[in-house]
């Protein structure tokens, strides 16, 4: 038995392990092992190897069982959950709809009751341009008459515009500035001075962003005036400065005085001042002068609902606009006067000198 081959011994060992041997043979195997340490070692190695083989298999099958169970468990869990949510949704759909409707109604009615919408409207439209609708009734009647007259002739029947505002000279040879909003949509523009002399003017240049329009008196009856008594102040003026204006809110010139109340205009416009002078429709385009007779701005509009908040476009914006006029649309250079003839006069004398240079702008 000593020269037993390894293969035979393993077979024997397997039989022993599988319990296929008789009691006698088992004893013999055990005795053989105890007598041959080499074989005993081989046997124990074999046993541990086989056990680890078995363990591997058992573990693998457990792992698989675990994975399958886990899969089942998660699936059951994930399937269950959406079902629950859907059921909940189905049962609460009506409640949700009613709640949403009530929420919407209450939100909007609250907003309406608290005057949110009217505030909104006010803030978005509280700037009013100060041109004057003249003779509204008369104009309507005239328009009707014109309509009746034109009823047979197939002319375009756009209604005539008729507005009044103010404008003032920037050069002695007939350049006049006013607001863009005054002359928008104009068929023709006429300028009339305080003596009642009326001249036809043409629009040289407009700047809608800055709300400025440059006109030129094209009438042949117009004669150049004396040098302008006022100058244009390029620097920003200071808050609280004493200022005044002359305009035509009606057919007569109206004097208004106040002070410069803010360095910026409507909604923070840096090209305008806020001024505190009572102004009315028709004041648009009027000059704003400081106490020395420098033009510091041009009246453009006021804010509705706020007392004494009128706005004037800064002279700087006017100068920028003048500089941006293409040369070929000019009729002779614009040379601003730099001699101020008003400085040492008192206010009434200043106004007397000024009056000749301020026009009522009539837009048809």
């Amino acid at each position, binding site marked *: 038995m000593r020269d037993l081959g390894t*293969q035979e011994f*393993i*077979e024997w060992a*397997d039989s022993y392990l*599988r319990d296929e041997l008789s009691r006698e043979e088992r004893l013999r195997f055990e005795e053989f092992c105890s007598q041959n340490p080499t074989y005993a070692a081989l046997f124990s190695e074999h046993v541990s*190897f*086989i056990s*680890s*083989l*078995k*363990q*591997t*298999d*058992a*573990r*693998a*099958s*457990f*792992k698989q*069982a*675990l*994975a*399958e*169970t*886990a899969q*089942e*468990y*998660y699936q059951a869990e994930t399937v269950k959950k959406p079902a629950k949510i859907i059921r909940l949704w189905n049962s609460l759909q009506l409640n949700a709809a009613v709640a949403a409707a009530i929420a919407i109604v209450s939100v909007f009615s609250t907003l309406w009751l608290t005057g949110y919408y009217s505030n909104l409207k006010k803030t978005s439209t509280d700037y009013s341009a100060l041109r004057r609708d003249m003779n509204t009734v008369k104009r309507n009647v005239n328009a009707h008459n014109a309509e009746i007259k034109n009823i047979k002739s197939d002319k375009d029947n756009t209604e005539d515009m008729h507005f009044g505002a103010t404008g003032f000279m920037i050069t002695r040879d007939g350049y006049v500035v006013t607001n863009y909003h005054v002359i928008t949509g104009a068929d023709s523009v006429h300028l009339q001075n305080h003596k009642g002399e009326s001249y036809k003017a043409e629009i040289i240049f407009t700047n809608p962003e800055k709300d400025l329009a440059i006109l030129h008196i094209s009438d042949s009856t117009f004669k150049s005036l004396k040098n302008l008594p006022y100058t244009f102040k390029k620097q920003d003026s200071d808050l609280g400065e004493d200022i005044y204006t002359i305009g035509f809110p009606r057919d007569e010139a109206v004097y208004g005085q106040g002070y410069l109340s803010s360095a910026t205009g409507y909604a923070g416009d840096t090209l305008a001042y806020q001024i505190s002078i009572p102004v009315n429709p028709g004041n648009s385009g009027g000059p704003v002068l400081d106490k020395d007779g420098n033009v510091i701005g041009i009246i453009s509009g006021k804010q509705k609902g706020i007392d004494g908040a009128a706005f004037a476009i800064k002279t700087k914006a006017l100068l920028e606009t003048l500089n941006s006029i293409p040369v070929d649309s000019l009729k002779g250079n614009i040379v601003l006067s730099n001699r101020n003839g008003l400085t040492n006069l008192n206010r009434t004398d200043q106004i007397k000198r000024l009056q000749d240079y301020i026009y009522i702008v009539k837009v048809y």
Partner: protein
Amino acid sequence: MSKEKSDINFDLEILHGIATGNNLAIRKLYKLHFPAIAKMILNNQGSREEAQDIFQETVMVLYDKVSQGNFTLNSKLQTFLYAISKRLWLKQLTRGASKYHQDQIDSLEDSLAAEEAIEEHVLTEANLNQMEDALLTLGEPCKTILQDFYIKNASMTDICEKFGYTNPDNAKNQKYKCLQRLKKIFFKK
């Protein structure tokens, strides 16, 4: 989270089921212990998938511990599983860059037991993975022959018939060769 008197018996039942690879036991294990552990992981920056992975590994740790045969449950099964999951999750977290401060709420004993079990598990896994790899490299039909003989305890005559050997002795020879090859592959690694 069984709160009845028979808590411990119930735990033991599950352990027994796991040792014998009973599917029902695994299912129970999930139902009773997964939610708490999933919650713990979700509360600590984990995703649902990560919770599932951790729980599966936890069960494998338990399995390894149980299949050693010398496992005695010192605390409730829930506590044991929770400690293991926590350890595993901690390890996974600290492997990445994220910081996690271990809180001292769980007792030292529990965490020590968990640590020990995990170490054992890692060893066993390494060892058995090697065997699995060896079996894979061995290939067919050797793998099935060995499995049939040593694990399913099939007789040599059955194997002879199944694989179409002319007589059981041939099959025996083949089986021996396969075993030798498997040993060679296993020990080489």
